[in-house]
């Protein structure tokens, strides 16, 4: 039909041409997003461009706009670029997010003074199940500056001045297409004092519309903002938390601003700008509660391996719905934890990584020097533990007793003691390294996987306690019991006492030395040995100091009748330690084992009493030797303990494992296997995996204090968590492999699985709190 029209008269041809052009324009327009708003007047040539070609079609049309057609120098106006995107395609914000690239707009014109680039509030694009979050725009967006023509611009007045801009950006749907344009918008500049002529209504309407989409300050919204952070300073690799509270009714009696979150997904709600060297993630969103109206967003931040900038600020946009349900945005600015002072690069890297390689391999942020210092401190504190204090006290008293001795002798004893301590710790370190090299993944406390070891230690503590009570005299020297302390029979004895101290210290060491040892186990052999040696030095320090510094010896009170009472008290401490070890044994091997050991301890007591009476009677000879032999045999009894294989969750034992199981709710606890977890996740249930062992003191403490808490149990029950307990009391290759998969060699470890992200569980650190755990449990089920 058109063809016949074209062959007709010129008028008909014109009409046909016009109709065709109109049709093409409409079709072209349809290829780009329909502009929601009044139709814009035609653009001057050079001020508009269509680019980002994909399959031959431009995906974005960009047009430079100014809200005045005619300005006087010095008078403010607005100038910007309007992007019109094809449906399904999006453009990026100044922080593009996890992928993409930021949109760049650079005006370059003589005499043009610009304010900062204004970005309307973006939206979040969450894709790949949350693997990546981008920030940007779809449909149409205007980015603009407040601008002025400088009054002393060289251009003659009254001329048309081209305002040039270069744009670089990326538009993506599934695939991405870059765009690059150089545009110029002519602007008429008058003489100073002239009245400005505003641009067409449609253009100004666009400026107004996107001005309104800029984020507002919280106060303008009628809400009060409070930002709290969990840390003040950051070192490389540190994690921290930020809590943003937005309250609608900060003061009584005021008109409350009610608002709700713009989205249930914190990732769509919280849109941050990029901060160098710090990654921020929104993890939870909750109502303020406690009668307050508002909401709280929890963020997690992580500093990168490079020293973060000295002073960094959090700038972000929060998406909210006001009382009328309209989507509005609030801008937030708050200081972030500060990084180290900015220093020239070489100096900054040196203190951050002494012993660059191995220390850098350790992600705990504790340098080698710090670990050594901690080890020394831990060793020092160990002296105060009931396990060690009695022996130390006796050593000190024997030292004082021999106050008349020469300094050289005192030095010899101190050296022998220290050597005994350090040597036995190094031997322990060597054992750990050997086991590690053999492929067994051991963490601190591995020896407690063996109930016999625990039983033997309990017996040893009990034996020593009996010595302190004066039942018999420990040791081979036939010293009369009236003598206080053991008369040192040479440096060899000091050496042995050093060894004894280490053996006794092991049960009490875990809470203090956990960090230093954790660091050590992750590092090289030299580091492990170094940290253990540091612990040894710390352990030996008080005695050595007392031996070497006569002044300190004066602090040790002179022996007297009160000493007997003190020895008895120390003996009681040892008995308490023994009982604690028995409770560990109860958890590890059950009531039968404890009953057996108690029986052995009773026999030990009787034998010790017998030996003691023989010693008092000063009878040498076969009877004494026999008594000693019987005693030794009985002391070794615990090593022959028949220990039954404990079931994974010992129902009869009130151990941590059971507490953990109870926390999971009746019927919800299961023993761990990777397949069972995968099944639960596939069914859409969130999962909570607890790695524990009965010998792991930290785990047990966590279970008693946190996992058994009603709030945790409620949360687990409410959200329908499948709870799995991985009990590593006995060696288990599956559990070891699973720990290794998560980059751990030891326990405790707690994993929270979101069924939508089955491969990315939330790993909780060693020290958990009820609030932290509840938050993590909620986060895994509330994020979208």
């Amino acid at each position, binding site marked *: 039909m058109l063809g016949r029209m074209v062959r007709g008269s010129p008028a008909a041809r014109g009409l046909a041409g016009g109709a065709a052009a109109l049709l093409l324009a409409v079709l072209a327009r349809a290829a780009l997003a329909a502009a929601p708003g009044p139709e814009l007047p035609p653009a001057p040539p050079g001020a508009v461009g269509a680019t980002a070609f994909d399959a031959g079609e431009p995906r974005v049309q960009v047009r430079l706009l100014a809200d005045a057609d005619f300005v006087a120098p010095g008078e403010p106006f607005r100038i910007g670029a309007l992007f019109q995107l094809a449906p399904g395609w999006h453009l990026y914000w100044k922080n593009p997010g996890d992928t993409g*690239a930021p949109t760049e707009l650079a005006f370059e014109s003589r005499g043009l003074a610009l304010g900062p680039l204004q970005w309307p509030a973006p939206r979040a694009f969450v*894709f790949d199940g949350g693997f990546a979050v981008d920030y940007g725009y779809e449909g149409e967006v205007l980015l603009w500056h407040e601008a002025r023509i400088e009054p002393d611009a060289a251009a003659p007045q009254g001329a048309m001045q081209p305002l040039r801009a270069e744009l670089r950006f990326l538009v*993506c749907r599934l695939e*991405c297409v870059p765009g690059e344009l150089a545009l110029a918008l002519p602007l008429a500049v008058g003489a100073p004092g002239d009245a400005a002529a505003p641009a067409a209504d449609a253009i100004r309407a666009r400026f107004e519309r996107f001005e309104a989409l800029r984020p507002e300050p919280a106060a303008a919204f009628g809400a009060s903002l409070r930002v709290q952070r969990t840390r003040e300073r950051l070192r490389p690799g540190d994690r921290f938390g930020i809590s943003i509270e937005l309250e609608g009714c900060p003061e009584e009696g005021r008109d409350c601003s009610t608002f709700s979150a713009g989205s249930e997904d914190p990732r769509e709600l919280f849109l941050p700008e990029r901060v160098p060297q710090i990654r921020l993630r929104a993890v939870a969103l909750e109502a303020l509660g406690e009668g307050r109206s508002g909401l709280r967003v929890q963020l997690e931040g992580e500093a990168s391996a490079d020293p973060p900038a000295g002073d960094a600020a959090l700038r972000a946009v929060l998406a909210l719905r006001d009382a009328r349900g309209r989507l509005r945005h609030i801008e937030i600015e708050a200081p972030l934890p500060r990084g180290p002072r900015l220093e020239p690069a070489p100096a900054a890297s040196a203190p951050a990584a002494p012993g*660059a390689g191995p220390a*850098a391999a350790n992600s705990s*942020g504790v340098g080698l020097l710090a670990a050594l210092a901690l080890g020394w401190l831990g060793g020092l504190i160990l002296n105060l533990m009931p396990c060690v204090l009695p022996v130390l006290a006796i050593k000190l008293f024997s030292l004082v007793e021999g106050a008349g001795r020469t300094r050289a002798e005192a030095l010899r004893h101190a050296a022998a003691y220290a050597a005994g301590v350090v040597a036995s710790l190094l031997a322990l370190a060597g054992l750990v390294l050997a086991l590690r090299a053999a492929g067994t993944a051991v963490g601190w406390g591995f020896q407690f996987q063996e109930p016999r070891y625990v039983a033997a230690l309990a017996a040893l503590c009990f034996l020593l306690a009996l010595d302190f009570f004066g039942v018999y005299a420990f040791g081979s020297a036939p010293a009369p019991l009236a003598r206080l302390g053991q008369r040192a029979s040479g440096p060899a004895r000091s050496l042995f006492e050093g060894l004894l101290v280490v053996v006794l210290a092991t049960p009490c060491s875990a809470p203090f030395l956990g*960090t230093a040892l954790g660091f050590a186990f992750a590092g090289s052999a030299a580091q492990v040995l170094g940290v253990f040696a540091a612990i040894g030095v710390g352990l030996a320090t008080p005695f050595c100091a007392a031996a070497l510094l006569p002044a300190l010896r004066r602090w040790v009170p002179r022996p007297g009748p009160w000493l007997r009472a003190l020895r008895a008290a120390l003996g009681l401490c040892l008995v308490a330690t023994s009982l604690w070890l028995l409770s560990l044994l109860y958890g590890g091997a059950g009531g039968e084992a404890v009953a057996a050991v108690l029986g052995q301890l009773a026999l030990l007591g009787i034998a010790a009493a017998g030996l003691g009476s023989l010693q008092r009677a000063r009878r040498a000879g076969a009877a004494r030797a026999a008594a000693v032999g019987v005693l030794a045999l009985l002391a070794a009894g615990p090593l022959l303990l028949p220990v039954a294989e404990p079931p994974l969750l010992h129902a009869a034992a009130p151990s941590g494992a059971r507490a953990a199981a109870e926390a999971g709710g009746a019927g919800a606890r299961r023993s761990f296997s990777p397949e069972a977890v995968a099944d639960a996740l596939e069914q859409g249930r969130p999962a909570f995996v607890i790695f524990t062992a009965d010998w792991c003191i930290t785990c047990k403490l966590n279970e008693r204090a946190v996992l058994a808490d009603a709030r945790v149990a409620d949360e687990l029950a409410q959200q329908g968590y499948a709870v799995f307990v991985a009990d590593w009391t006995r060696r288990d290759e599956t559990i070891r492999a699973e720990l290794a998969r998560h*980059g751990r060699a030891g326990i405790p470890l707690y994993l929270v699985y979101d069924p939508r992200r089955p491969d990315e569980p939330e790993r909780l650190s*060693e020290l958990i709190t009820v609030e932290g755990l509840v938050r993590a449990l909620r986060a895994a089920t509330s994020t979208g």
Partner: protein
Amino acid sequence: MQLPISIRIALFSLAPALAAAAAGAAGPSVGEPAPALELSDESGAVHALSDYAGKLVVLEWTNPGCPFVQRHYRSDTMEQLSRAYPDSELVWLAVNSTHDNTPADTRKWKAEQGFDYPTLQDPKGTVGRAYAARTTPHMFVIDPRGTLVYQGAIDDDPHGRSDAPVNYVQNALAALRQKGTPDPSQTEPYGCSVKYAR
């Protein structure tokens, strides 16, 4: 001895608590061992990260369909960098985690571009997710001991308009060869998103 929680926390605060060793959903952190990987390349040969212990390894997440990757291959950025050091010192491995990429596609791209390093095929995206590779290109530099020492963008010029962009990977490799550490060790990568399988 069961200690009340306040004392327990006080005890733990004697020493800084171990930061969570493994990174969360953000993949491996610089300073941690690089996740193990074992994939076959476009010719069927199998490569494991452990094969290259003792050498510097660069992993380049790539996707010929991404304009950022195309721009870099037009200017031979990766290719030149892969040839900067001998094979005995540096191993360059490209990884393609695009869900619908086939070895045949890669062979065609390789023939067109003329580079000589293998491209590991990861259509299921397991290795990409293990490394939390987000964009193409996304670069990872691993030292001879298997520790991740750099991750992030190839350079500081997302739109390719600088005449002399700072090439982070080049600087990292140079620093490592002189027994130093890369600086920066971590940057935000730019590019198209990795098109993972759903």
